[in-house]
């Protein structure tokens, strides 16, 4: 195992050290005292695990193509920006635009997330990105979503709180959103259609929720026992005739 102390280190140096370690065959790298360093794991490939202690800066795991990043703490904005493959596990909350234009891999967030999570996610054949969020989400969840899977669990929600913010699924034209619990109709963007879940959905939910429960020490059955709302787009090309 390789240990890097990132205390007061500039992000360029930290990322150079990470890439050097990966190139020399390290498959288990631990980064300590991270505070705000951007672009951690960006564009990295291969089968390795990076454990981050502290608060990584924006755009962690952007363009990442294979590795796993485990964060022992909260993260900021744009985790998994255009990520292609791999896994991110966040033991805390996350900021805005998580999974921005993500095209593969999985992100698990234990607690709440901010605004515009899953914005413009997309999928192609077997490349289906997914984000699983334990807590609640802000406005514009799944905005302009073109593919992939968003799962929002609402664990620990207070009586006066909503699991999701307003304008959920606005501009959605692909993919699927699963939300545990009730969602008021007015919170949905006009492109999102609310449907009940079927056996195929149950299978997808079970697969992701079992992993989520394992990472964060929950009972998967407890979570799966809740009722889920499914959101899919009304049409695949909502603006297809806009300029015709």
């Amino acid at each position, binding site marked *: 195992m390789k240990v890097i102390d990132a205390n007061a280190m500039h*992000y360029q140096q930290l990322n150079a050290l990470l890439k050097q370690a990966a190139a020399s065959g390290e498959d288990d790298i631990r980064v300590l005292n991270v*505070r*705000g360093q*951007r672009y951690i794991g960006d564009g990295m490939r291969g089968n390795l695990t990076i454990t981050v202690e*502290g*608060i*990584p*800066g*924006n755009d962690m795991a952007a363009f990442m193509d294979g590795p796993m990043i485990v964060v022992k703490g*909260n993260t*900021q*904005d744009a985790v998994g920006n255009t990520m292609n493959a791999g896994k991110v596990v966040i033991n805390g*909350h996350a*900021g*805005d635009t998580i999974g921005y234009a993500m095209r593969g891999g999985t992100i698990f967030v234990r607690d*709440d997330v*901010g*605004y*515009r999570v899953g914005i413009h996610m997309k999928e192609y054949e077997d490349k289906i990105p997914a984000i699983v969020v334990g807590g609640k989400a*802000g*406005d*514009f969840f799944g905005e302009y979503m073109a593919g992939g899977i968003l799962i929002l669990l609402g664990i620990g929600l207070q009586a006066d709180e909503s699991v999701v*913010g*307003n304008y959920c699924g606005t501009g959605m034209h692909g993919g699927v959103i699963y939300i545990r619990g009730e969602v008021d109709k*007015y919170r949905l963007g006009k492109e999102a259609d609310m449907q009940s879940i079927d056996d195929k959905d149950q299978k997808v939910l079970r697969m992701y929720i079992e992993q989520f429960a394992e990472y964060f020490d929950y009972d998967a059955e407890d979570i799966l026992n809740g009722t889920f709302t499914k959101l899919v787009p009304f049409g695949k090309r909502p603006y297809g005739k806009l300029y015709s």
Partner: protein
Amino acid sequence: MLREKYERVPSGCAVSGIMDRSGRRFSGNDIIQSIALMRERSNGLGGGFAAYGIYPEYKDHYAFHMFYDDEQARETSERFLNEHFNIAEAGPIPNTKVSSINNEPIIWRYFALPKEEKLTSSGLSSDEFVAQCVINLNKRIDGAFVVSSGKNMGAFKGVGYPEDIGEFYQLYNYEGYMWTAHGRFPTNTPGWWGGAHPFTLLDLSVVHNGELSSYGANRHYLNEFGYECTMQTDTEVVAYLLDLFVRRQGMPLETACKIMAPPMWDEIERMPDGNKAFYTALRAVYGKAMMNGPFSIIVAFNNVMLALNDRIKLRPLVAAEKGDVLYVSSEESAIVEICANPDRIWAPRAGEPVIGVLEGVKV
């Protein structure tokens, strides 16, 4: 001041603020450390700080921080100041040579009180008198710029990275109970000494990340109340709007926030009747004061720190508390950098103000 050449670049300013609500004063080191952590959000074309509680020995005087292009601007301004004010102390603001900070203007400070006879003949309150003098100075005296003009506070700003500006002004030598900071990444306006944040009027200061697409409407609205926008930047309208609503019209701060970042119409539609009527009226009457476009701002007055986001959260904002201390910042890491274990850390919702008030003060 030298209007610097600039290129259009993707935006990403940094803001940070710390307030000890018990009034305990602390040095400028924390705020410098916090804003320095977000260096990547700035590009060296502007940095600045507002500090409150730093002049207890002159706490009843207006502290004028001034930039001058040349000695002639200083002489003309001092003639103006001497005509309208009794000046208790005047002198250059101490600074240290920092290699990255260049082309600084002449930087002076005055502790002053309006002359009794001028106040009487003007018929104005002393705050209003000072505000008008500031607007006149900025507008009429070529090469002079009022950086700040409040009591027991001051703004320190310039062209450079914020941590270098903090060192330049020796902010570690000051103690205040409330500090705000800005790292600039100018997008639509030039980087010049006067154009760095914070923008101030009296003791009100604003640091801002984002841009106001409503600037034209806001500016026009403010003109009707005698405010002149002279600084080639959208941010100054925030200072004037709050000055108008809170100081001049005595409006509750929360209401002013709901004018600047109002609820959406569909949200108002779902409100109970009383609220629906109130917010409909607010939007109808103050429509031209609504701020559109992406922003996160931190505003400080003598007793209050306010952080506010645009209505759909197009800029980041994080808040935290530890005992009496309230933190707000563009990034969570910039808070944890100076407060390792906050009692609470959260992302305020869009348009939802975070307000810190000095102990024992009613807002």
